[in-house]
């Protein structure tokens, strides 16, 4: 019945390290009140959950409602716990697991600074075009590209830029939304 948990021989229970982890994207609708982000982050650090990516912004100004997108990794039972723990927080309106919904769209934006001249510079520009990255700043010795897409696309673009003179990267983290006519409960 509890074969997913291994005994440690202790009165305290430690979860098996062998359990398979999954990555999930969660959308959380919250009241945009002071401290709400600290509450969410505190839940993750206090209970030992992972945050791979976190984005937050007010989405309905007049209602003071913000939307938080969290990418997290854990065993299926931990993911369920995270959803329940978030859902019972007082300022939380609703929680959706976009990974379970399945047909959700996720995007993130990155600004990628690449410095170089000659052949490397041309190659960087050529790749940027292939990835539909836009040049948002250009100098004689460097570019800043803006790239939007799924995390793995952004990852791939950045790794291609490494040998071509990658200087630094700023990423927004993942924002996600489910397809279809329905919206999340506010």
């Amino acid at each position, binding site marked *: *019945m509890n074969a997913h948990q291994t005994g*440690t*021989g202790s*009165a305290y229970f430690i979860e098996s390290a062998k359990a398979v982890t999954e990555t999930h994207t969660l959308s959380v609708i919250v009241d945009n009140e002071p401290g709400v982000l600290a509450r969410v982050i505190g839940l993750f650090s206090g209970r030992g959950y992972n945050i791979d990516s976190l984005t937050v912004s007010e989405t309905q100004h007049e209602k003071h409602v913000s939307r938080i997108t969290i990418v997290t990794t854990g065993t299926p039972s931990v993911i369920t716990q995270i959803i329940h723990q978030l859902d019972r927080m007082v300022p939380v309106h609703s929680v959706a697991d976009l990974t379970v919904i399945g047909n959700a769209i996720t995007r993130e934006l990155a600004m990628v600074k690449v410095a170089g001249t000659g052949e490397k510079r041309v190659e960087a520009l050529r790749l940027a075009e292939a990835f539909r990255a836009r040049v948002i700043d250009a100098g004689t010795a460097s570019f800043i590209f803006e790239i939007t897409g799924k995390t793995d696309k952004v990852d791939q673009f950045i790794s291609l830029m490494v040998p071509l003179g990658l200087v630094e990267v700023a990423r927004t983290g993942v924002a996600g939304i489910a397809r279809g006519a329905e919206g999340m409960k506010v």
Partner: protein
Amino acid sequence: MGEMTGAEIVLKALADQGVEHVFGYPGGAVLPIYDEIFQQEKVKHILVRHEQGATHAAEGYARSTGKCGVVLVTSGPGATNAVTGLTDALLDSIPMVCLTGQVPTHLIGNDAFQECDTVGITRPCTKHNYLVKDVNDLARILHEAFYVATHGRPGPVVVDIPKDVQFAKGRYVGPKNIEHKTYRPRVKPEQEAVRRAAELIATAKRPVLYTGGGVINSGVTASKLLRDFVALTNMPITSTLMGLGAYPASGKNWLGMLGMHGTYEANMAMHDCDVMICVGARFDDRITGRLNAFSPGSKKIHIDIDPSSINKTVRVDIPVVGDVAHVLEDLIRVWKSKSLALDKKALEAWWKQIEHWKARDCLRYRKNADVIMPQYAVERLYALTREKDVYITTEVGQHQMWAAQFFRFEEPHRWMTSGGLGTMGYGLPAAVGVQMAHPTSLVIDIAGDASVLMTMQEMSTAVQYRLPVKIFILNNQYMGMVRQWQQLLHGNRLSESYTEALPDFVKLAEAYGCVGIRASKPAELDQAIREMIKTPHPVIFDCRVANLANCFPMIPSGKAHNEMLMGEDVPDEVVGSAIDAKGRQLV
């Protein structure tokens, strides 16, 4: 209504919430509120001696009445001293509203005198907290705080009120029509889940009810419905430490408490059952023992108001989210309307097995004519108070477990103990809070000599308010539970668990202006307890018990419910070798 000051709004809101008693301690940042307290009569303030005492008193008050406990403390050290009690209330799901003073708004973040980040510090140890920055939000936030503290799974809520907000004038709104915009916990269960639960129970051949503090929190109706359901099905019932009294200890289906120091029959029934019905409990590690050996052959039903308790540590087959009273009401209705019943023959065989386990008499201990055995002291205390209107609180340790094992509770709300956090020093101030709510009842703190010294200063509170609490100390000069673990797990090396210098508790009682009683021999115990009961003042009872007695039965570390260590297996001489080397490393 015209404008009021923030401090006036606080008192008006408390009165409108029906608050009669506030436990608190004044200080610079709450003086405007104390000035209002002085000028009104609806809300009575009880001055404690330390803010931790205020929080535990409020917990005792809340748990013995079912109402919300209220605490008022100042900023900085006032707030930080309250943190232990807030955490205790969070882990034991006690409804509490704690008002903290704060430095004026413009000084927040300035490292001002007696400033601390109260909402930051208390965020992980409260159900919710607020910093009030505008006096016009104050009344709404206060009413919301009571709503959040008492609805759903109860818990502590902090409202941090800067001093300038207490002086500022603003509008008051009443408690009516305060409906929280996001927090609306589910109390009525899904009918489909209840139906499935009922059908599963009806298939059981070896069922057991495992109940917890959620039954108490749900109110007296829940306890009544629980008793009805047990009578209806004739199934065995056990309870966690927090749930004692929901089902009467004299009831014929009672197995006693389960868990680490629970009875043999309760733990064996949990291990061997085929259907487990968990009602308002949360599969705590002190209950389950080794998780992968926890009740391996059973289907599990879990009734809980908090969805995050479901599948947290133990996978269950049928979760039913809702308030215990609502769920039990629906469950009984479905049970009756479908004419469900348990298999009589199987149930008879199950009871026969349970009687066999009961025959081991797991709580048996060696009687002694010369020294008072601590178990005997609790037994006598129970025997001599059982006809009375009695409330029991405890500290934390061996005495707490002996109280749970040997004192028998017939009704809910009669037993106040720190279960989740295990806070030594809980019992004395909790008794103060209980006595405040029940002035004519007999309120006894079954204490240990080490625990009770942690909050001993609250005897002064008891004396000031003429609260005749009885502090019954099982004095063995040790931190007994620490010593027991050192004996079992650390090669009998008693590192810092012996108190070389204890106060003379009888003289200490006299110094506080209350009554001190001592008993050292079994023969004088009854008379001394009788004297304590009839004393109309606070009493410190120094009960000198066998120093090296240990608390059994016990599920040792790394063991399952069916591998209990019994008292007769570990007499004091061999206690050091009762657990093997492997087990010792793993606690």
